[in-house]
């Protein structure tokens, strides 16, 4: 079970906003984390704590294929992103590196900045502890659950589980 404070963002948060390209000269997660959301939310890195949750609108992670974007988010200690929808490359990058993502438009509308939220990644159930509401996020298809259960794509291939 994951539980943390919510940092909320809008629609079409692109990978240049998540991690500006000028910092792509490294793939160290701690280094990348320092610049996560720097241009639009400069206080994010100093305020976010391990276990906190990102919540966003439509098309989260649109733009470039840089895996540095989910790595930077993971580097901040954020274990899960809830959004109305994810851009497709970000979606697969997150799965492949073991950052949990959940699509749930109702939860996004029912959660505000600063709310305390818990997420059961096995069932997809999202609970807004502050507002006493629960939401059912979309579960992953079996194929993708296999990847996650193996601990990511590379392990799934090594264990011949794809």
């Amino acid at each position, binding site marked *: 079970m994951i539980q943390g404070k919510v940092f909320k963002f809008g629609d*079409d948060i*692109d990978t*240049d*906003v998540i991690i*500006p*390209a*000028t910092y*792509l*000269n*490294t*793939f160290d997660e701690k280094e990348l984390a320092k610049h996560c959301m720097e*241009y*639009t939310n400069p206080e994010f890195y100093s305020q976010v704590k391990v276990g906190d949750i990102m919540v966003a609108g*439509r*098309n989260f992670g*649109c*733009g*470039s*294929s*840089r*895996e*540095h974007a989910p790595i930077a988010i993971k580097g901040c200690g954020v274990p899960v992103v809830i959004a109305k*929808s994810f*851009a*497709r*490359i970000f979606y*697969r*990058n997150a799965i*492949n*590196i073991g950052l949990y993502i959940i699509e749930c438009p109702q939860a996004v509308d029912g959660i505000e900045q600063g709310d305390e939220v818990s997420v059961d990644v096995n069932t997809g159930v999202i609970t807004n502890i502050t507002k006493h509401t629960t939401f059912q996020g979309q579960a992953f*298809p079996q*194929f*993708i659950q296999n*990847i996650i259960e193996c601990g*990511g*794509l*590379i392990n799934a*291939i*090594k264990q011949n589980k*794809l």
Partner: protein
Amino acid sequence: MKLTMTGQILARKLGLSEEQATAQLQSGSLTLVQVDTALSNDVTAPVAIDVFNKSGCSLCNPDCVTFVMDHFTPNRDIKTAELCKTVREFSHEHGVNNFFDVGEMGIEHALLPEKGIAKPWNVIIGADSHTCTYGALGAFSTGVGSTDIAAIMMSGKVWLKIPSAIKFKLVGKPSEDISGKDIILHIIGLIGVDGALYKSIEFDGEGVQYLTMDDRFTICNMAIECGAKNGIFPVDDLTNEYTMESCGMTFDKLSCGDDDAYEQVITIDLSAIRPTVSFPHLPSNTRVVEEVQEQIKVDQVVIGSCTNGRLSDLRAAAKVLEGRHVAAAVRTIIIPGTNKIYLEALKAGYIETFIKGGCVVSTPTCGPCLGGHMGILASGEVAVTTTNRNFIGRMGAKDSYIYLASPATAMATAIAGKLTSAKQLED
């Protein structure tokens, strides 16, 4: 034909008949597909190599792997030099022949078709979002992340969700001043930045015959900017003319499926499209240049990138500039996509036109498009550029402003010092 073009390519790869594929390749289902080419660059390859090395596995097929050092090259700083060194050493150690370094490299999505590496009917997977460019050749090509590339290096295969598709029926003949860039910006403006999320966008109709290969590359290149998994054109006589030159081969024709193979069919009248520009900060924020009333003064113009750094793009820009000079206040940066394009532009006299007209001509690099180097914007500055994204801070300062346009519009703007179409400049 009951299959989309994407479906036909995947069916052939999986050895399925049309009937089998219709039953088995339902959109939304997940499958493993053998990959012809796995591409990555100096930003994404080092991550893939790190993941691959840690896996302890051997390289499945060195000929399937292509590395292009194009984003921060010639290297910007010590860290980016180290990244390129990692890829260079890995290539030598593992016998990766398709390693393109400074001198031989170009912007990856201009280079792979030119070298004959990207071919029709291929499955091309790249750790770069603009890998969708090769759909212009009738290939299935899409962007992924670095771990996916490491997985292909280990297994030769990629996991894919079978996409649903939108068919764009192109009708009418575009005006002479309209390029592929105006067409794709118009389409993105129409459907939005997530209008084709997870889907294929496929192009069909009589209008296709009026589009050059360079137009098709530009259109497929920006498929990702409306969220699409891939963009794809038919394989026709023009495609085969191109591949005869790039790899000395011709390929089976590929045509769109029936309308009912598609989730949606949208008709686009090419004759009605006018020069189009995307305002900050989304590619979907489009307007017709000639309808913009306010004055948009510019500090910088960039003509290049994987979207618009090809020979016909440089030709269009040189034609507008011929006999003129760019405005004194506009830094105008021209970036040919590859060395071959550079040389052809030199022979055709375009480079001389650019330099005499007050532009600077750069080595091939992605450079300023992603705010890497070679033309970073300062706070408050405005750029009109032929690149593909106008997100916040994409080309430099977080409070700079990017307008996306065609090469002709970008050069007309450089000359006028404010957003202007080539036709407005003539008038």
